[in-house]
């Protein structure tokens, strides 16, 4: 991909992540967008276009949810669209904002991700019943936990990984989240706590899993010229990638996410990155389940196949380590309002690269950060790389 116009990130905003928030989806979108505008020091007048990300309409029971949320997201009388790639939407929304600006059609694009899972009763998981194939899978009464248990089991089997090794990720991320003001499930726990927690679908246990949440996040992307008016040292979008695999997930080996390798390579090529393991300083990889952090590190080529657990055991992925992974606390610690959770990771890149992460600031000096999300039926990944010059 030949980069034509340089794009910067100049602001980020994030609401609380909680199980049930009293604010409506419109209000959550408004709060995140407002914070992002304030953080950038601009007003809505300067925004040319708005992109929204939000996961299934089934959560809210509102058809064309993007239209419904548009005024809350700041899109009243603006160029506006909603992009939708399942769980990968949160990182994909700023990717879409990138091409709005890179194409030259917008100078300033506001990207908002909102999720309000709580309206669905009795449990948000019911929305996921309708993501399965209408002919082959729905009649089985499949749930998300079943298929992730299959994938986790396959990953463990292929590399001889133990449940205890995977549990370290939950321990690390929930601990990191103690320093995140928006976090829902920050905690000091041990590997033993994870192992003893209630089995959901073996080998997935309660503490291996991120919670359902409500929340919203927003970032502002703009042209380099615009950014230089606002700050001397802007943060750049260095690479974007996305990729989808076949919907027939039963036909492939789940031990390795090839679609993620492809998405990563697309982003690395754009960013001119040849060796991600040494050139990426820290990463926010998608961790709705603890094994997914490891799976995704491997797909992103930040770890060799089967070696992400060893890096975790060695402390390399700690905030103080050589390659910090999920310094924010990730979905396991901060919460998982689907699209907003992905965008939270992009916000974290912005906070870390501009030294605004406070107690979460990683120990080493960072110049290049990567955010990634995963979605659809275990078949999609989006990747966003940001750089400080």
């Amino acid at each position, binding site marked *: 991909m030949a980069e034509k116009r340089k794009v910067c990130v100049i602001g980020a905003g994030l609401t609380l992540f909680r199980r049930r928030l009293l604010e409506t989806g419109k209000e959550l979108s408004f709060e995140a967008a407002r914070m992002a505008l304030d953080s950038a020091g601009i007003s809505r007048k300067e925004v040319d276009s708005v992109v929204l990300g939000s996961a299934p309409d089934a959560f809210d029971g509102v058809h064309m949810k993007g239209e419904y949320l548009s*005024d809350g997201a700041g899109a009243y009388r603006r160029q506006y669209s909603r992009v939708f790639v399942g769980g990968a939407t949160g990182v994909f929304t700023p990717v879409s904002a990138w091409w709005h600006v*890179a194409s030259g059609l917008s100078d300033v694009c506001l990207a908002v991700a909102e999720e309000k899972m709580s309206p669905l009763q009795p449990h948000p998981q019911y929305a996921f019943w309708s993501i399965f194939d209408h002919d082959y899978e729905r009649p089985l009464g499949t749930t998300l936990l079943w298929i992730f248990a299959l994938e986790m089991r396959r990953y463990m089997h292929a590399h001889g990984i133990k449940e205890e090794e995977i549990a370290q990720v939950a321990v690390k991320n929930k601990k990191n989240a103690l320093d995140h003001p928006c976090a829902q499930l920050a905690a000091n726990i041990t590997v033993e706590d994870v192992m003893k927690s209630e089995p959901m679908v073996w080998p997935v246990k309660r503490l291996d899993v991120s919670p359902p949440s409500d929340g919203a996040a927003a970032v502002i992307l703009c042209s380099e010229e615009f950014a230089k008016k606002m700050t001397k040292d802007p943060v750049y979008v260095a690479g974007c990638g996305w990729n989808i695999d076949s*919907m027939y997930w039963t036909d492939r080996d789940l031990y390795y996410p090839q679609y993620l390798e492809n998405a990563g390579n697309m982003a690395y090529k754009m960013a001119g990155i040849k060796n991600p393991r040494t050139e990426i300083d820290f990463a926010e990889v998608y961790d709705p389940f603890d094994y997914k952090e490891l799976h995704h590190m491997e797909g992103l080529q930040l770890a060799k196949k089967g070696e992400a657990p060893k890096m975790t055991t060695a402390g390399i992925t700690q905030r103080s380590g050589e390659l910090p992974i999920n310094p924010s606390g990730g979905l396991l610690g901060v919460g998982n309002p689907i699209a907003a959770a992905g965008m939270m990771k992009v916000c974290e890149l912005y906070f870390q690269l501009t030294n605004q992460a406070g107690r979460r600031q990683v120990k080493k000096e960072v110049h290049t950060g990567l955010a990634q999300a995963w979605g659809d039926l275990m078949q999609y990944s989006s990747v966003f790389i940001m750089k400080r010059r």
Partner: protein
Amino acid sequence: MPGRDVAIVGIGASKFDSTTIAQSYKELTFDAARKAYADSGIDVRDDVGSFICCAEDFWEGNSISDEYAPDQLGAKLRPLFTVSGDGLLGLAHAYMHIMAGVSDIVVVEAHSKLSDVESKDLVEELGYDPTFARIPGVDSKYLAGLEMRRYLEESGSSIEDCAAVVVKNSANALKNPLASYGGELSLEDVLESEEIASPLKKLDVSRPSDGSVVMVLASATRAKRLADTPIWISGISWFSDTPNVEEMDLGQAVYALNSSKKAFQMARITKPTEQFDFAEVDDTYSFKELEHIEAIGLAKRAGKFVSSGKADLDGVLPVNPSGGSIGMGYFVEASGLVRAYESVLQLRGDAGPSQLAKASKCVVQSWRGIPTQSGVTAVLQK
């Protein structure tokens, strides 16, 4: 070169019909994709750097309908995403992909399988704000009725003018071999049809249709090599007004006004009435065609313009020569792309019995339907 940066180099469509029992939506799309790839002469396995689908979950009956998009397009393990919008919005994103350097060749897809949707009215009702605008027991088209009343009141167009749109578009569709709802109607047929939401009558409303459209877009350098007659997207823009029913400027089509302003600016259109050879505008409801004609500046008094025959196939500015949604059917999110498809046929001179004598530049405009105030305008030219 401005206006000649991005071109449509391949188009494909499945059959368009009120029901397509023998084919799934995937098979319809496979058909359309195969034709579009053959038409452009690309090798989908190597040439395409980005695929874009346009869909809404509730119409699909799947949550995260993006999951189901890749296989029938040949997009497995490739960059693909779904935009929750009309097919023309997909073209807009493809335009940006090419301009941003994502890829030199981009594929856009949109489809409708409305014949599978048993609860079309309920889905429409779920589009309204759950607290303030959903009215149980009232037809979800109430907003269309309200807007029609307001439009007639403010514009000076009459109910007969709206009926004239239906008569014209149904007659145009009779000439279009791809259209399903052609017919010889009289003004009385329309005016005497059953009332849906006063003053909106049954025949003022376009009827559902199935079908899939795939388009291949290319950058200037690739387009010249791939197509004998590249159709340039010389301007494209999109716009959303308020989503709140109580705030809408009903009858004004603010989305069409603003998106056309920007698209025309890009395409250097200063006199739309003179510079376009024909127009494909949204006619989900008959009065919408009139409202849109006025909003994008094709005529000041659209009612008179249509009633006097100026928008006919042999008029000064044919509007909806394809038959529009009233003559071809309503394809939900594919509606805009179906009309872009028809426009490309016209511009290439391949429109068969509906071919216009002069067709080198046109405007295509779409609207997302009730209860939205969102739409896209595109300028296409030879």
